[in-house]
């Protein structure tokens, strides 16, 4: 089951080379995003759009906030 994390854990994962995925719509990603994040909007999240992600490495997803 995916684990929810806060900033300190995110920092640790990013420092260890985790992959970062913003799942918001493309327009919001284009406006402002975390450095190094790629964009896969939730509605387009499937085997094809995630093919470039490395399944052996950690993946961190995020959207706008917890609401």
């Amino acid at each position, binding site marked *: 089951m995916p684990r929810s994390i806060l*900033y300190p854990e995110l920092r640790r994962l990013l420092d260890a080379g985790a992959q970062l*995925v913003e799942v918001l719509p493309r327009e919001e990603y284009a406006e402002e995003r975390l450095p190094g994040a790629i964009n896969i909007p939730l509605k387009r999240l499937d085997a094809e759009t995630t093919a470039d992600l490395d399944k052996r490495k950690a993946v*961190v997803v995020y959207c706008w906030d917890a609401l």
Partner: protein
Amino acid sequence: MSPRAACRLEALGFKQVYDYLPGKVDWLARGLPREGEKAGQRRAVDVARDDAATCGPKERMGEVRPRVEASPYGFGLVVSERGTLLGRLRKVALDDDPSSRAEDVMEPGPSTIRADTPLDQLHDRLDRRGLKTAVVTTPEGVLLGVVRRDDLNETQG
């Protein structure tokens, strides 16, 4: 949205999936680097200064007062060892008994703003309240700096 995305990734065979639940709002509020079309827009953290006098909660006012008087502000900020903002020392507190501890004379829980507050909003807020400064902290309350209204006036042109 992100919890659903995390579950979806697991269903697709990813074994190490994490959900940064506080999201982009949390990251931006920390004043951390950002990319994108709006990344160049200046926010509170971009004009915040680190020249406010700070002290620990156990420090005596006799030690703190000279530091505050040497700073550009008429107040001091009390922070924990980890940098969390605990309170503000107003002018009246600076004149207190020199043996008083900062934690005993500080105003606890001063008003703060987040690092990603847009400068025009911040300018309006300070104008409405007749304030000359705003204290910038992370979502956990770690002190990032102080914004001066004079600096905003220059920025606003």
